[in-house]
């Protein structure tokens, strides 16, 4: 959610993508709250008091949530509510490893084509009915149904069928082995009964999709006033309550819809909301002036802002030119000048916080001489009168497209222009409406360089969407609609990504991803520009806040937060 807000100011569509993936996401491993206060460095000292039930937490939504149905919502705002409403099969710990939630245990068959899941007994939905294997099957089958109206069908593309063995056992049969399976099937479990009388195509019309959602999560919907707020109240019968020492603790959650970021900042300072990820430029002020009122939680973004180079078009079809641009870009200047030093340069496509990160990959320092040398190797000759390299009489001139309106992007364009000038490359910076840019220049491949952002899911399989050639194939009209807008087609990368997708042994998977990262860094199809260090501010009256790697003070752990003490 907090990721989205920020990214949303940079670009409009992409963001939601990574987000929604993450939103179904991480939950904590089963350790009682209170004694796990120091999960990360920034965590404040654990409180001496024991958590007690009570209090109200005020949170912000930048926009109206679109749906409270765990398989139909598409926005980060819907995700915030869905996360509280529903229980999922698995939780994910800080290492992004699955831990039991609705699924008590699970086992993959020898041939890696059947996943057997044992459903925990005695789980009740908030309407008092039982959650069993039928409901899990209903949820997943709805996504696979041809009439399904949501956007998640492809996450279950490897699933052949779902077999309900008995009330508490089910089997998921696969078409082919799938390593990211557990994150891909981890949807909030819907109640089959609540959708009785509604076909899959009509699912959105059921009260359970919006006005009266039925889940088995830590909170239930109390009141939703369109445009104003969503109030949720503690589910006293939450089946994980005992395991977490009586969680959830906070009696009510009030999500207020506040579209303007400056207004949200004022509301945070005024105590009207309890959590916010402010703009980088406001962090220092909040840290100094509100130290007694707000607690800061720093976290590395599980994603990055990056420049896409058009690999299918001269001169960027030449690896040496792409490498030269990477070496020539003054990323330090972007981070200090634009992002107030609240970002790092990503060494490669997989961020260091991921288990799949290859730590032999280091950040490339800026090297103007080497960049020039590479351009000369690629056949360019310096025109001394203009200071720009030329090849066959054509000056090395590139066009950079970026979405207008975001100061960060505008400043990046300016810095790119001046730092590439030093290596003899002329950059024409074009700032236009993001959607117009995507439609008219980026999707049809009529660009040299463009800037956007990408958020990763819990599994490094996200890389598939960015670098596999299938995500960069033009459609009948010549438009690339997938995320491989760099039109980067590398057989070895394709092979590695496919293998990693089907490999269950983490060591082997890591090897595949290591080689993948080294190829991407060498081929330089994109330039990783920055990975933000975000700061979440939470009102100091709230305790037990979990700072989750890559996601910060995420809503997924609100059930462990508390205000009152015994």
């Amino acid at each position, binding site marked *: 959610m907090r990721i989205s807000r920020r990214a949303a100011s940079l670009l409009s569509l992409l963001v939601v*993508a990574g987000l929604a993936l993450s939103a179904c996401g991480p939950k904590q491993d089963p350790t009682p709250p209170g004694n796990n206060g120091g999960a990360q460095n920034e965590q404040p000292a654990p409180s001496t008091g024991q958590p007690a039930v009570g209090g109200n937490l005020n949170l912000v939504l930048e926009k109206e949530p679109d749906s409270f149905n765990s398989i139909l919502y598409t926005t980060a705002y819907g995700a915030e509510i869905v996360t509280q409403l529903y229980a999922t099969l698995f939780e994910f710990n800080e290492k992004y490893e699955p831990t039991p939630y609705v699924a008590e245990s699970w086992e993959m068959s020898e041939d890696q084509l059947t996943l057997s899941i044992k459903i925990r007994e005695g789980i009740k939905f908030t309407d008092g009915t039982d959650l069993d294997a039928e409901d899990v099957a209903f949820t997943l089958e709805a996504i696979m149904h041809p009439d399904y109206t949501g956007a998640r069908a492809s996450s279950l593309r490897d699933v052949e069928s779902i077999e309900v063995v008995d009330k508490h056992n089910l089997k998921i049969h696969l078409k082919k082995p799938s390593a990211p399976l557990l994150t891909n099937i981890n949807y909030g479990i819907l109640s089959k009964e609540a959708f009785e009388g509604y076909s899959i195509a009509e699912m959105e019309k059921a009260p359970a999709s919006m006005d009266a959602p039925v889940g088995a999560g830590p909170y239930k919907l109390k009141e939703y006033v369109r445009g104003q707020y969503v109030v949720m109240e503690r589910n006293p019968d939450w089946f994980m309550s005992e395991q977490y020492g009586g969680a959830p603790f906070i009696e009510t959650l009030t999500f207020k819809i506040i579209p303007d970021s400056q207004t949200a900042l004022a509301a945070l300072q005024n*105590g009207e909301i309890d959590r916010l990820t402010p703009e980088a430029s406001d962090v220092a002020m909040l840290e100094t002036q509100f130290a007694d009122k707000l607690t800061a939680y720093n976290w590395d973004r599980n994603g990055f802002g990056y420049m896409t180079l058009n690999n299918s078009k001269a001169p960027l079809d030449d690896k040496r030119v792409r490498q030269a641009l990477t070496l020539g870009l003054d990323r330090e200047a972007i981070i200090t000048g634009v992002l107030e030093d609240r970002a790092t340069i990503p060494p490669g496509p997989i961020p260091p916080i991921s288990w799949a990160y290859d730590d032999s990959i280091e950040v490339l320092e800026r090297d103007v001489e080497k960049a020039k040398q590479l351009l000369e190797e690629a056949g360019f000759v310096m025109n001394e009168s203009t200071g720009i390299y030329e090849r066959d009489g054509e000056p090395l001139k590139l066009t950079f497209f970026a979405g207008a309106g975001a100061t960060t992007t505008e400043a990046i364009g300016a810095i790119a222009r001046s730092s590439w000038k030093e290596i003899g490359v002329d950059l024409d910076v074009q700032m236009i409406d993001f959607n117009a840019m995507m439609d008219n220049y980026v999707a049809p491949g009529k660009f040299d360089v463009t800037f956007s952002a990408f958020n990763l899911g819990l599994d490094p399989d996200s890389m598939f969407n960015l670098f596999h050639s299938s995500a960069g194939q033009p459609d009948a009209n010549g438009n690339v609609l997938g995320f491989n807008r760099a039109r980067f087609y590398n057989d070895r990368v394709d092979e590695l990504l496919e293998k990693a997708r089907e490999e269950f042994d983490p060591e082997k998977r890591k090897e595949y991803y290591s080689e993948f990262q080294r190829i991407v860094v060498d081929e330089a199809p994109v330039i990783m520009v920055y990975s933000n260090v975000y700061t979440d501010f939470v009102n100091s009256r709230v305790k037990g806040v979990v700072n989750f790697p890559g996601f910060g003070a995420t809503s997924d752990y609100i059930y462990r937060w508390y205000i009152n003490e015994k």
Partner: protein
Amino acid sequence: MARYLTKRILNMIPLLFIVTLLSFGIMQLAPGGPEYVILSAEADAMSDPQQVEALREKWGLNDPVHIQYFRWVGNMLQGDFGKSYYYRLPVKEVLASALPNTIRLNFFALVLIYAISIPLGVISAVRQYSKTDMIVTATAFAGQAAPSFWVASLLIWGVAMNSGGLIPTNGISTPGITFETYGWLSVLADRAKYMFLPLIVIVFGGLTGLTRYMRSSMLEVLREDYVRTARAKGLAEKVVIYKHALRNAVLPILAVSGGLLSSLVGGSVIIENVFSWPGIGRVAWQAVNNRDYNVSMAVMLLSAVLTMIGYLLVDIAYVWVDPRIKYD
């Protein structure tokens, strides 16, 4: 009169037709489509042109443009404004939840604007070039010149944050405070405190025009012979101004009030965003961003229709205010 009205109403039909063409055309020209907003939930879906196509097909976005247009108009004539892609709800429901909020705010704002600007205009006309006139004129121009988002921010930081929790920075009501749970007085007080700041911003920004109109129209009337006659008769100055002059001076104000109805429901994107006021302006703004075609077309159409009705009402009101005017 009846004939005139029939003619006016019939004239509105071609105008409406042009409005539907424009609202439809503008959305068609906007790059990107609702399918991207929906599908961007999953990167995989975006990479799968088949899925994008399937969705476009289902929503009828692949049909020729003129067929889409006639389908939209046809449905509308039967009272069906289509479905919001974003909310997965009928457009009518989306608008129905936002409309009362906008009307609530703008009703009070318009009442205040008229209640303040007419007397202000009269005062500055009667005391032309006096200190009062200068102050009124300066304030009015300041209201016009200061951007509303700036005034809004000033109020949030200067007033709300220093009010010790009395005046909230944003929102429209406190969750839980409703007529069922609280007495009506506390509910009203709650709603009033949320309305306070946005109301000031709208009224401050809206005073200028009317005050200036009122001032110049009053100045003109005061030079008329019948005012001189009234004074010569020995009538008190108050009677001259408020009974004889004012009624005539209000006429031009009526002429500029045709947009009233549409501004009552139109809402303001900026004010509704800054103060988190869940009104039509915000719905329209988000619909445009989400390429939620049906919602944004409905809002455009709504404000066009209301503008037309507004001016029709003004024409009718003329007859009532000024007996000299007759339509045949």
